[in-house]
């Protein structure tokens, strides 16, 4: 005769908090990056007006939502995707996969190739969002980390990256 036990799922509060902070920071950085970088501005401009997208972790978050208003400007819309209409939802399949991505063990492209992301929405829009995230990561991270996080590190001048990084950090922290 064997034995049985019911095991309740444990919690991973530190990992969840780390991913939540990363998502919050990236979400707040995107609107600033759209002002600073012409490439990101173009990507945002090509998205439909009123378009919103979310990036979150299954099954219950954390998440971030970014939207584009009628005037074409991007806004960080918080961390509750269930409270608003979302046109494109990028869901990371579990917290461990999110940790892998946000500790730069896996780039977004590699994580997608390994089926760690579920995309609910139009694929061209998803590709645009991944390009935006890649560009934002180049600004946010030092080169040694950004090379791990993005598919291809861009050939931008040091001045462009450093000035953009200063503007984005300032804007994301202070909220302007």
């Amino acid at each position: 005769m064997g034995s049985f036990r019911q095991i309740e799922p444990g919690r991973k509060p530190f990992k969840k908090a780390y991913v939540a902070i990363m998502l919050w920071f990236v979400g707040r950085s995107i609107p600033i990056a759209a002002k600073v970088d012409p490439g990101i501005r173009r990507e945002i401009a090509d998205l439909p007006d009123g378009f919103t997208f979310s990036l979150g972790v299954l099954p219950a978050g954390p998440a971030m939502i970014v939207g584009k208003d009628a005037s074409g400007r991007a806004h960080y819309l918080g961390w509750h995707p269930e409270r608003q209409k979302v046109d494109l939802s990028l869901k990371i399949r579990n917290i461990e996969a999110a940790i892998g991505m946000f500790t730069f063990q896996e780039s977004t492209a590699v994580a997608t190739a390994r089926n760690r992301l579920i995309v609910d929405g139009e694929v061209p829009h998803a590709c645009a969002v991944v390009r935006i995230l890649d560009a934002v990561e180049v600004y946010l991270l030092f080169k040694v980390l950004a090379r791990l996080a993005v598919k291809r590190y861009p050939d931008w001048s040091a001045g462009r990256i450093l000035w953009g990084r200063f503007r984005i950090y300032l804007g994301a922290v202070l909220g302007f």
Partner: protein
Amino acid sequence: MNMPDLFSFQSPVKIESGRRALENIPIELARSEARKPLVLCGSQRDGTAEQFAAAFGDSGVPIVLYEGIPADPDFMTLRELWGLYRDRGCDAIIALGGGTTADAAKALNIAVSGRPEDLEQATGGSPAAARLRPFFYCPTTPGDGRETSCFARFGKRDFSSMSLMPNLAVIDPRLLREGAPGALTAAMVEALATAVEARLAPARNPLSGLYADVVIRLLAENAAAAKKRAAALAPAANALCLSGVVLSNAVRGPASRLAAALSAETPISEATALAILLPHAAAFLAKRHPAAAADLLLPLAGADAFTRTPAGERAARMAPQLRSLIRNLAGAADAPPSSLGAAAVPKEALPAAARRAALDASGASEAEGLEILSLAWTGTP
């Protein structure tokens, strides 16, 4: 590619394989509309169950873990599991282990999808319930490929139904163990035999053939790694998983049937008999189907060796290549004897084994079976 006039192929098995694959189980359960799985595992205390349970962290999915599936589970065990499944409100089954655990999980799935009596009253064949509960399989020790197949054995009863195949197989390197001495070699040879015989079967199925090619390539390309056993675990687990799908869509060939018959008639183990018999049976089948045998050299030897071999010699090179691959997979420790004679199989037992295998309708007659056995007894290539 030659298209047969008629073929069918079915594989409901989704495979999640690789780093952190375990953590995907909760979302796959949600997709199957299951909220609380009953997890069956053996009685080993090597941390496997704890590692498995930790993968559910932050998922919100509780699990009911049953440890101690016996090597030969009976109806009493099944009734206990059925009661546990019902009383704890489970709605899916996960087998965490090898062949015995997978067989018990399949039998339990028949019981919980209908009534336990369904299994007790069944004399084998297809289960009464056509739609079974979600069933996932996570290998930890090498099995024989039947785990992902449409076959299940419970006691002396054999069941066969496509609905018995797992909905998901999760191969996570963190869980894989070498198992008992010789088990890994036996598992790899079993997977190889299933794939080779599917490729050389009279009624070849093009889709089974593709799966079989992947099985052979996984084993052949990782044969060098097989010397470092830990490095061979993941490729072997993937090959076994796919070989179950091949097995479900193909007829067992003469090597498998003769090995089973020989182990029933003599003290030789089925795994050793299969390792000796497979190249001889393949050479026999190559004479009947030279084009298929020539094609088989490609996954066995790789593209470079295949293109270097003149087209007219490929069929003849297949069996020696297969023999060499089996030796590489086995390594020095588990190397099979060179012949059935060297394995101390009495020559007088061969006719009875050939008769027993022919009764199983292997596609090879008793005389042909005896011819293969005789060649394998002397070790004549």
